[in-house]
């Protein structure tokens, strides 16, 4: 079965995504072999749902986006694997957040990954997963210059052998 990539997208948005090709300069293949066995690997998760910790982190800047609709907050948050759903907030203006708040695992399955580690499917989970807010300025300038290098350093520091990214 092949997924219909546009099943849930408003028809008028389709040309924004279909047939646009790669971003300039991003045509060439990039590849890092997955060298280890999954059962011996530490896995990290990355969500673009705009998840943050309500008690200790600022939300993504949605007020600024309301003033400047082409802009999206390029920063990121570290989300501990042990975070409880009740402590998680969502700052994202492009999706309905009700289901996400009811069960953040639909975007960041940290509890399920931990379960996989307990079952021996994976070797382990990183201590801190990663959250970004996926609506970004088209040039992706801040993500390229600042966020991506910070994420790489964070993931390397966490000993991540592989990363599962899930755009919302």
């Amino acid at each position, binding site marked *: 079965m092949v997924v219909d990539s546009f099943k849930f997208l408003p028809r008028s948005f389709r040309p924004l995504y279909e047939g646009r090709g790669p971003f300039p300069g991003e045509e*060439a293949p*990039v590849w890092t072999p997955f060298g280890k066995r999954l059962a011996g690997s530490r896995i990290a998760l990355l969500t673009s749902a705009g998840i943050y910790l309500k008690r200790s982190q600022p939300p993504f800047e949605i007020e600024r986006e309301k003033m400047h609709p082409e802009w999206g907050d390029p920063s990121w948050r570290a989300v501990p694997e042990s975070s409880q759903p009740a402590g998680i907030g969502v700052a994202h*203006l492009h999706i309905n957040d009700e*289901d996400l708040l009811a069960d953040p695992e639909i975007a960041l399955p940290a509890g399920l990954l931990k379960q996989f580690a307990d079952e021996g499917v994976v070797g382990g989970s990183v201590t801190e997963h990663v959250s970004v807010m996926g609506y970004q300025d088209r040039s992706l300038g801040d993500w390229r210059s600042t966020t991506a290098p910070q994420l790489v350093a964070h993931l390397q520091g966490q000993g991540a052998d592989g990363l599962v990214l899930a755009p919302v």
Partner: protein
Amino acid sequence: MPVLARWIEAAGIPTVVVTMMPATAEERRAPRIAGVEFPFGHPFGMPNNRDMQRGVLGLALRVLAGASAFGTRVDLDVEWPVPVREAYRSWQPKEPSPIVKKMLEARQQ
């Protein structure tokens, strides 16, 4: 997001993108892709449906660890258990996003 995956992959960490728009992730040249036919906001499935979420994360991990070449894409054969029209309506924000609001205003002028 596929571009972010590319940058992280290029820095030496293997990646897989779980996405409801796998065709777009292919166009954007993501290294590994797991496709799901789910409404936006729900890449791992329905809230509190652990079996569905297991299916997605399990597939993502198999693609991450088992793909042998750049551009590998595997789609999950699971149908969203809500009528399309209802699911289409319910993933959308209660208020249009700022950019959609701006586009709608421009269209009216």
